């Protein structure tokens, strides 16, 4: 080993208790950082996927303004042919057309106002997870069948089951009165209260008949293979629609502004907490290195008198800090990864979490994922701040006068 390295290493262990305590501060903070970052980004991913896979998709083609107002008359004309054209031109089957209407659903005993989706039974399962969540009965089959699937809570509130009839009352885009009687063929249970209580789906063809849509719908939903390919897909779709200026493509963050903002709000408060942890570690390192420099003043005086330049002493101090920081970083990343892995296997939850994360379509128990990024992002920042904290003691050395230094003990 290089003599300077060896010197730095030995200096580090002159006060092994102090060094270990400083490393302990790093390991503690790093463990927390790894765990929290893994959990956080794992949750964001789940939040986005779970929310988008219910209805939003990665993007939707809509009439301008529909996103904010959801009015019946803000339609996409010939919505099914459009969806079919996109499916063939993009070579993708994760594209489906939909209509949406508000209506009063009445059973023999009860009436509730609900949101009704008109969907393509053949394509909806590729863009939404609702078809897969049918708990009783079956999902929709024919495009023109007079049938409907409803949420579990809604079924309970309406006091109906599979096979019962449901009367729908509503109005078409022109305000004309719409009414129909359909058969309940299936009941889904998504676990999301709002959806299970308020939503029903019927075949798009029937929907268009009942609500006088004249072949129109309200949205074409598209799902990219992965979230990070959504932007690329969106620009391709925009290219294909270039001639059709009656339509816009809205990305997931525009469709679900709350989701992105909730993540932003969560990130800012989390970063505040991370920042405080990092600063506290930096203070710990500053304290240790300041002590380590002050108690060696005499010794530094001697080597300076022998001709060593203060710059080299400063580098020695930085080298010692870097060694300590590296140990802290790797032990911390390792401890954090092990700690987090335990939760990866067993899941993580706390009292009240289920209620809170249900707002974001999350289950009450989450399983954080450790990646190289979540494992080292936090510890690397801690390492950088560790070095920065040692700068003050290292720079103090520049002002050291050999004779004065040797006089102290």
């Amino acid at each position, binding site marked *: 080993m290089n003599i300077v390295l060896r010197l730095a290493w030995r200096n580090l262990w002159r006060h092994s208790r102090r060094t270990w305590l400083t490393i302990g501060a790093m390991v503690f903070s790093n463990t927390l950082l790894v765990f929290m970052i893994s959990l956080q980004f794992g949750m964001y991913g789940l939040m986005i996927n779970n929310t988008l896979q219910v209805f939003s998709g990665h993007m939707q083609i809509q009439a301008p303004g529909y996103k904010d107002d959801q009015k019946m008359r803000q339609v996409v004309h010939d919505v099914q042919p459009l969806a079919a054209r996109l499916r063939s031109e993009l070579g993708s089957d994760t594209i489906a057309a939909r209509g949406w209407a508000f209506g009063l659903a009445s059973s023999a005993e009860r*009436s509730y106002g609900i*949101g009704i989706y008109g969907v393509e039974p053949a394509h909806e399962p590729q863009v939404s997870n609702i078809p897969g969540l049918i708990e009783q009965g079956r999902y929709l089959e024919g495009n023109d069948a007079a049938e409907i699937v409803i949420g579990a809570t809604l079924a309970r509130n309406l006091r109906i089951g599979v096979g019962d009839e449901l009367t729908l*009352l509503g109005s078409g885009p022109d305000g004309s009165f719409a009414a129909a009687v359909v058969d309940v063929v299936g009941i889904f249970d998504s676990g999301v209260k709002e959806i299970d209580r308020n939503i029903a789906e019927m075949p798009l063809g029937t929907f268009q008949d009942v609500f006088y849509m004249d072949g129109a719908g309200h949205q074409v939903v598209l799902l990219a293979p992965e979230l990070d390919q959504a932007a690329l897909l969106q620009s391709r779709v925009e290219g294909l629609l270039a001639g059709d200026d009656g339509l816009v493509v809205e990305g997931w963050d525009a469709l679900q502004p709350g*989701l992105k*903002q909730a993540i932003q709000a969560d990130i800012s408060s989390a970063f505040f907490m991370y920042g405080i942890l990092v600063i*506290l570690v930096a*203070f710990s390192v500053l304290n240790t290195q300041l002590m380590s420099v002050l108690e060696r003043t005499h010794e530094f005086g001697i080597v300076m008198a022998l001709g060593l330049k203060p710059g080299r002493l400063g580098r020695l101090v930085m080298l010692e800090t870097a060694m300590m920081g590296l140990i802290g970083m790797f032990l911390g990343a390792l401890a954090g990864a092990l700690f987090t892995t335990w939760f990866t296997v067993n899941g993580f939850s706390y009292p009240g979490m289920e209620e809170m994360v249900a*707002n974001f379509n999350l289950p009450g128990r989450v399983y954080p994922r450790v990646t190289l990024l979540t494992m080292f992002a936090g510890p690397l920042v801690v390492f950088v701040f560790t070095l920065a904290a040692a700068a003050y003691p290292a720079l103090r050395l520049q002002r050291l006068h050999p004779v004065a230094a040797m006089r102290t003990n």
Partner: protein
Amino acid sequence: MHMFFVLSRLAWRYLWRNHRRTIVMLSAIAVGTWAMIFMTALTRGMVDQMIADGISVIPGHVQIHNPDYLDDPSVNNRIAYTDTELTARFGNAGFSSWASRVRVPAVVTSERESRGVTLLGIDPEAERSFSFVDYAAVDGRFLEGPDDKGVVIGAKLADTLETRVGKRIVIMSQDPDNEIADRGFRVVGLFHAEMEATEESYAFIGKHTAQDMLRIGDTVSEVVFVGDDYRDVEPVFDKVAAQVDDSVLVSRWTEVDTYLGTMMGMMDGFMLIWVIVIFLALSFGLVNTLVMAVFERIREIGLMLALGMKPAMILGQIIIESMMLLAVGLLIGDLLAWATIKPLEGGIDISVVAKGMEMFGASSMLYPNLDIGDVILANVVVLVLGFLASLSPAWRASRYEPVEAITKV
């Protein structure tokens, strides 16, 4: 007591002997304390606001319903008592604020659009003091009495329905026989609320008008009671429970809105965890500082022992030194927190992430709440844990053999 004074003076002097180290450690404690209190004040402010907003929508601290109502909020699940009986039970029982209301799901239809809402039939005077609607700030006017024939809806809902004050809308619900009960209403006022969802979800009509329209005589869906403090609803709960029999269910607000109830409990848990995490991050530096402080005066400790000081006094001296360090750091941190939170009490505008905050159930203004109980808890936790963390270095210091300590260089 005398000895305490002697040891305190020694401890205080020793604290400033190595002033750089003490200042670094004080900074760390101050920053940590500041972060504890600042973060807690923000979170406490957010949760308080959420609960205040949430309770105002519920509203009230205690409610009574038909036992089946919370699960199935239908017009069929009404309270068994008539309005006259309710007045007999509660009118003279010493409740400062209470109101009975009709509350059913309904559909509102304009010429253009339909939406589902919660229809509230109220006596405006009875709930003026605790309603989430500020009657004076309504565009147009609020309801004038239980027989008012108009409807007041949220501004956002009016936008969606493309209606405004003076125009007519149709409200549709069901009567106890599941016949459609509908009636045309003139919009007399538009209310504003912190959250868009609130503006979209409620329509107010006169209580008697509602009873008439729904053909339910003089029965209601719920009775709400407001007490002095939402944190302690037991007195009101007990008083209400004493006035009713088994035919109705008495619930606290935490049971009506379990999400809010959970959030309140979670807040206190979060607070404690955050304080402990910061303390642990600080504790490494604290122990390190004490170890160093002991190390550099082993000889002096030996001397004191040789002069006849008992080991317990050395132990006391180090612990007092640690407590002083913490107390000064806490004081600075408390003042810093106070100084940074006070200017923000007018509210922090976080409307950039308003949609996201709405998903949590929080509004877009954040009013930090510097709760004295939180401050005391943070300080006490730090002092108690700090005391425990100091025990080990202090114990070691008191275990030195005087001869060995004195001869140690």
